[in-house]
């Protein structure tokens, strides 16, 4: 497999892959190949990630000093709205599912493509159209409502481009619905011979659970955004308190989507981490069945906890109690997963490759993020902490420390499969460690700020908070450098990287049985699955090991 050629598209004579099937722009933009669509998505979300990251950098620069000296109040409000909207809907939600998921799910279940390839391409176009709407709103002067679009601020009082942004989010919702439908149908109907439900890799299960949430939650967001558009455009007074509307009703519909959306972001990350840890520890995932059930339970209970965002919004104490209770319950399956990842390391043979460093970092950061979630589920503590930097730190631990770490880990882990090239392991490890420390340096001080009472979305703050803000902003510089590094060594890998073998990590899973990069139809022969997942060793392991597996062959 070694050759001294340079360039991504140069192959050995006679060898073809999805990358060499047509090299024109048109062959990419009209491709229905899930692998090419994954690449299209990867390029676009990277663009949005750096736009959102630039906004974050300016936010942290402003917060170096207590005075509002770097930006005006209006500019600052537009910056954090932009950061939230872009990062949530244009980066985090599509990040793992639309790139790694799109690329890997058909490979993992042994299919030629996703169930509806054209719908898949349409999903990317919807994403781009939505992105254009949102970026237009940004170029015209931005939106200043916060990513949460709370009424009546967003409907009656804001003079910014809410309509364009809300419509953009409405459209991007359809792109995630399309992805979700595709993944569910793929897992149900396109598993290859021998790929029973309990032989699915956990990443495939994660995609399945995520898709369920996408399909069931996103329409409610669509309705919320459309109602905002209707109120702004036609003046239909649905949330306007002066005409008898109820502004808090908006929060209910909004969080009915947006809390499950957190699980759209974190479930795929859990899938990625399970794959990496099992492979790099050479161990079957501890408690495979429990891992599956935990993900499904998270997906279901995730729909029932939205009210914990509204403990101080004037909802009835009775409702607060119930939402608090359910929020504690959902902590259990998340804890189970952390224990099981730890258990997987036991008696393993651990290699500290870059993906593994990201995965181990994920376990730590996700645990801390999850534990601080308990603070916010406790009503009296939440009353004190809600809308402070504690909340900001908490969800960044889950979303950046959790989801983004896992995304980077997954990107490194499957990079050889996607591009057919190896990256520089030492640079990658250095970046992973930089990101881990930069991240903690940035966000840990925010927990303290939050406890001390600093409210979020303040561009000016009392001077006693400055020391922690300076610490956080300094960490953000480290973090920003960490995020730029992979651009460099990945670009080098594309041009000059060593050729990757088909299975450089000696991992299990169907995606590693085909070429790197895979041919157009993924497998030359339809694969047949004969072993349990994660067969890194030849003995069975309770609990939920091979002996427990049911025998439901797909039709």
């Amino acid at each position: 497999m070694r050759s001294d050629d340079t360039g991504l598209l140069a192959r050995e004579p006679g060898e073809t892959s999805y990358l060499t099937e047509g090299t024109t722009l048109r062959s990419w933009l009209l491709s229905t190949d899930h692998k090419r669509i994954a690449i299209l998505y990867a390029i676009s979300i990277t663009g949005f990630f750096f736009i959102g990251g630039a906004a974050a950098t300016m936010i942290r620069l402003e917060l170096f000093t207590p005075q509002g000296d770097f930006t005006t109040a209006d500019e600052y409000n537009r910056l954090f709205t932009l950061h939230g909207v872009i990062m949530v809907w244009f980066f985090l939600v599509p990040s793992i599912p639309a790139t790694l998921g799109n690329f890997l799910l058909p490979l993992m279940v042994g299919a030629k493509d996703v169930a509806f390839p054209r719908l898949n391409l349409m999903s990317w176009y919807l994403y781009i159209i939505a992105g254009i709407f949102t970026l237009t709103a940004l170029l015209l002067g931005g939106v200043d409502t916060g990513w949460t679009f709370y009424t009546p601020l967003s409907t009656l009082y804001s003079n910014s481009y809410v309509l364009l942004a809300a419509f953009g989010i409405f459209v991007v919702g359809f792109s995630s619905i399309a992805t979700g439908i595709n993944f569910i149908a793929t897992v149900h109907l396109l598993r290859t011979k021998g790929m029973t439900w309990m032989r699915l890799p956990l990443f495939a299960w994660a995609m399945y659970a995520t898709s369920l949430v996408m399909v069931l939650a996103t329409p409610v967001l669509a309705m919320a955004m459309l109602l905002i558009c209707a109120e702004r455009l036609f003046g239909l007074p649905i949330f306007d308190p002066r005409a008898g509307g109820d502004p808090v009703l908006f929060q209910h519909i909004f969080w009915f989507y947006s809390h499950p959306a957190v699980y759209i972001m974190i479930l795929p990350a859990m899938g990625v981490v399970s794959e990496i840890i099992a492979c790099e520890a050479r161990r079957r995932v501890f408690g495979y069945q429990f891992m599956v059930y935990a993900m499904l339970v998270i997906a279901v209970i995730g729909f029932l906890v939205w009210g914990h965002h509204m403990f101080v919004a004037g909802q009835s104490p009775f409702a607060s109690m119930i939402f608090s209770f359910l929020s504690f319950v959902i902590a259990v399956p998340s804890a189970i997963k952390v224990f099981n990842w730890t258990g997987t390391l036991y008696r393993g043979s651990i290699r500290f490759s870059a993906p593994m460093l990201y995965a181990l970092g994920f376990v730590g950061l996700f645990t801390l993020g999850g534990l601080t979630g308990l603070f916010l589920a406790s009503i009296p503590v939440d009353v004190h902490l809600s809308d402070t930097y504690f909340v900001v730190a908490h969800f960044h631990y889950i979303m950046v420390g959790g989801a983004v770490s896992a995304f980077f880990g997954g990107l490194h882990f499957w990079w050889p499969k996607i591009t057919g090239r190896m990256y520089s392991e030492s640079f990658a490890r250095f970046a992973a460690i930089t990101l881990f420390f930069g991240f903690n340096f940035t966000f840990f001080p925010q927990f303290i700020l939050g406890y001390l009472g600093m409210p979020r979305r303040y561009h000016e703050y009392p001077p006693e908070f400055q020391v922690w803000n300076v610490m956080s902003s300094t960490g953000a510089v480290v973090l920003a450098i960490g995020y730029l590094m992979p651009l460099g060594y990945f670009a080098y890998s594309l041009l000059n990287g060593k050729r990757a073998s088909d299975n450089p990590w000696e991992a299990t899973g169907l995606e590693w049985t085909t070429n790197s990069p895979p041919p157009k139809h993924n497998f030359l022969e339809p694969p047949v699955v004969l072993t349990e997942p994660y067969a890194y060793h030849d003995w069975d392991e309770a609990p939920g090991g091979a002996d427990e597996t049911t025998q439901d062959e797909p039709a």
Partner: protein
Amino acid sequence: MSAAPILVEPFEEPERQREAMVFGLWLFLATEILFFGGFFFLYAVARMQDPDGFARGGAHANLLLGTINTILLMTSSATLTIAERAARDGWMRAARWGIIFTLMLGTAFLVVKGFEYREDLAEHLFPAAPDFSFAGETGATRFWSFYWFITLVHAIHLTIGLGCVARLLWLERQGTLARRWMVAEVTTLYWHLVDIVWLLLWPLLYLVGR
């Protein structure tokens, strides 16, 4: 007898392909149900808070045109089902006429709706207009906000449905409908959903004030 269906990537068996299309469409219908569910939730909350206001507002909805539209849509569901069954069994003449009738009924619905909107506007029933009949009345204002919002959303759905049905007619003209009757099957499923949503809206919007 149905003709051998045309296979598309990534399927290898016709039965599996049909299963996937129907399953995928049902998933889409699930999203639609949740989408409209968000609206029905708002409607329920608002109406419980002020049932009288809703009744006062609802009394001004045009029951006659609403009912005519209900009948038009119900009939169109029947004609499209006939067309779909006919296409599956290779009876293309019936399929063609079923599709044409459906298109006509669907268009008639939109035309009647247009007339109804014109009357509503003439009666000052648009809440954002300065001369709104129920200005200052909570329940009736909310009712009419919902009325405009949801009937417009429904009309957009119906227009998309008309596009899909028109595509069936085009497939029939191309002569491929007999081998792609699954397309007719999923189009019919979607059409039925649009129909059922209307069937729920009819009592909620037209019968509430009577």
